[in-house]
């Protein structure tokens, strides 16, 4: 029987089990080589080495076998797919490792005491981070109250009104602000309040909020700007054509349409500054006592709590370390909750289609 080639038939393809089998095979070979080849003085098998060699072996196997069986196009496809997947895995490894380390180390002290006590008169085990949690929440809230209106209005100016030199200057300075090292923001707030209030009262929670605002405003401006830009011009025109003035069009059409994106951007900006340590160390200081008043006296915050617990370990080193990790875990949880919140907001506020 003659086989008539239609030109559309797929070339032979490798079975589904080929990829997992090649992976297992390559890494087993790599592991075996490294285990057998190591000299007793070197200690354990190098996992990094196994990873590299195993992956290289896998690429080689796939490229050769696929080229022989499936042809050039599919071989290239498999090769690139493997490289892209590997790049992804490489990016995820530090993330997972970091989350894992923080959770395993921090979970020990994540108890009721940690959320209900300050560090006043605590030198050994026990104590908590309530003062730092309260400080972080208050400072971030104040920073947001300052940055969100300023940032959103700046973005509205840039997108809806800004023309010519002033707009270009504002854009330029927002770019510059994005690049400010956070310690400089802290120094700025610290010196500002040093000039205003004198050395005795310069360090307080509000100064910390100002430092955070300096870092937060450009992020809010950028995020809002991007969101306002993608509101279709047709909607603005539709509103103008109904005899709606420009400012009402912005307030009632443009902003609501972009609201989900703006809210998400704001929350991402909050999550970005909530972990800032250096500026708060300078501007808000550190303390072991509760302080609910952001306008006077030093105020503890979670990142600074983590830092000081780690930097100044007392006699009972382990308690300080445990508290430090628990503080880091708490901060991570807060950021996670904020991100979750951002997802929910964008889900509920997005313009609904079909």
């Amino acid at each position: 029987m003659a086989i008539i080639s239609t030109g559309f038939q797929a070339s032979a393809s490798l079975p589904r089990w080929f990829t997992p089998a090649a992976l297992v095979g390559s890494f087993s070979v790599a592991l075996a080589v490294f285990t057998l080849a190591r000299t007793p003085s070197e200690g354990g098998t190098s996992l990094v080495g196994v990873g590299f060699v195993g992956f290289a072996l896998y690429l080689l196997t796939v490229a050769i076998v696929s080229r022989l069986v499936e042809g050039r196009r599919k071989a290239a496809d498999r090769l690139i797919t493997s490289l892209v997947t590997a790049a992804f895995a490489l990016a995820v490894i530090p993330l997972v490792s970091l989350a894992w380390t923080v959770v395993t180390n921090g979970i020990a002290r994540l108890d009721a005491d940690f959320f209900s006590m300050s560090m006043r008169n605590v030198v050994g085990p026990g104590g908590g981070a309530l003062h730092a949690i309260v400080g972080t929440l208050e400072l971030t809230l104040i920073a947001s109250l300052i940055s969100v209106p300023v940032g959103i209005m700046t973005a509205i100016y840039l997108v809806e009104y800004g023309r010519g030199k002033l707009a270009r200057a504002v854009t330029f300075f927002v770019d510059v602000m994005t690049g400010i090292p956070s310690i400089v923001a802290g120094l700025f707030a610290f010196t500002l309040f040093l000039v205003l209030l004198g050395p005795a009262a310069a360090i307080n929670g509000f100064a910390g909020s100002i430092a955070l605002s300096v870092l937060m405003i450009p992020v809010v401006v950028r995020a809002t700007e991007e969101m306002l830009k993608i509101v279709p011009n047709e909607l603005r025109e539709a509103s103008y054509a109904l005899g709606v003035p420009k400012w009402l069009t912005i307030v009632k059409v443009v902003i609501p349409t972009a609201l989900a994106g703006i809210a998400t951007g704001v929350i991402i900006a909050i999550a970005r500054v909530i972990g800032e340590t250096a500026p708060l160390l300078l501007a808000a200081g550190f303390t072991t006592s509760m302080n609910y008043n952001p306008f006077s006296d030093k105020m503890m915050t979670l990142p600074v709590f983590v830092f000081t617990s780690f930097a100044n370990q007392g006699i009972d080193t382990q308690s300080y370390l445990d508290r430090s990790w628990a503080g880091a875990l708490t901060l991570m949880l807060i950021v996670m909750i904020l991100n979750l919140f951002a997802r929910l907001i964008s889900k509920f506020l997005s313009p609904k289609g079909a």
Partner: protein
Amino acid sequence: MAKRIELKSIDVYYGKFKAVEDISMVIEPRAITAFIGPSGCGKSTLIRTLNRMHEVIPGAYVEGELLMDGENIYSDDVDPVKVRRQVGMVFQRPNPFPTMSIKDNVISGYKLNNNKMSKSDADDLVERALKGANLWNEVKDRLERPGSSLSGGQQQRLCIARAIAVEPDVILMDEPTSALDPISTAAIEDMAVELKEKFTVVIVTHNMQQASRISDMTAFFNIAGTGLPGKLIEYDKTEKIFSNPAQQQTEDYVSGRFG
């Protein structure tokens, strides 16, 4: 209601570029006037000058006089926002507000201007406007659904309902059916014919059958070449333009010999 529009030697510029030159014509009330012509001849630009929408584009300005029932809408003391309240517009692509329900889209002209109205007034208005746009039967059971849940043709009729809900004197339609299928197009054409009972209707179209089907008057625009301004070549009763035009260019265009 239904105003007469008189254009007196209108020139439209985008910055230094003169897009439309020396247009003088009278647009009759309670009639449909169609603007036809090849792409880039300035018909969309011109229709946008009728409610000062071209001013949204930076650098665009108009020279000449545009009288609406004798009142020049380009005199210095005229607020463009007020002009647009009397001259509604429907765009090429349907653009309902995505954050609003069908009902809110219809009354958006009031809501966006912060005009309060009682719930029963609003319901009456919604029903009247949607009936006027031949959309009521299709959407009366889902007025609270988002406007973007409708099909393209329904969205365009929703936009027309939105425009007529504010009870303007003039309705401008800039290629309202070019993004729609033939059935939706027919629905909108029928509606345009009903609208001329109450409004002055101006429609820009690339579809010559459409112009000949629904319009009473037709204006043919053309450009001599790229970079040159668009001009009004001929303006007359629709039958005359399509059967026995005075200008050779018009005849070439409507008979499909160019463009």
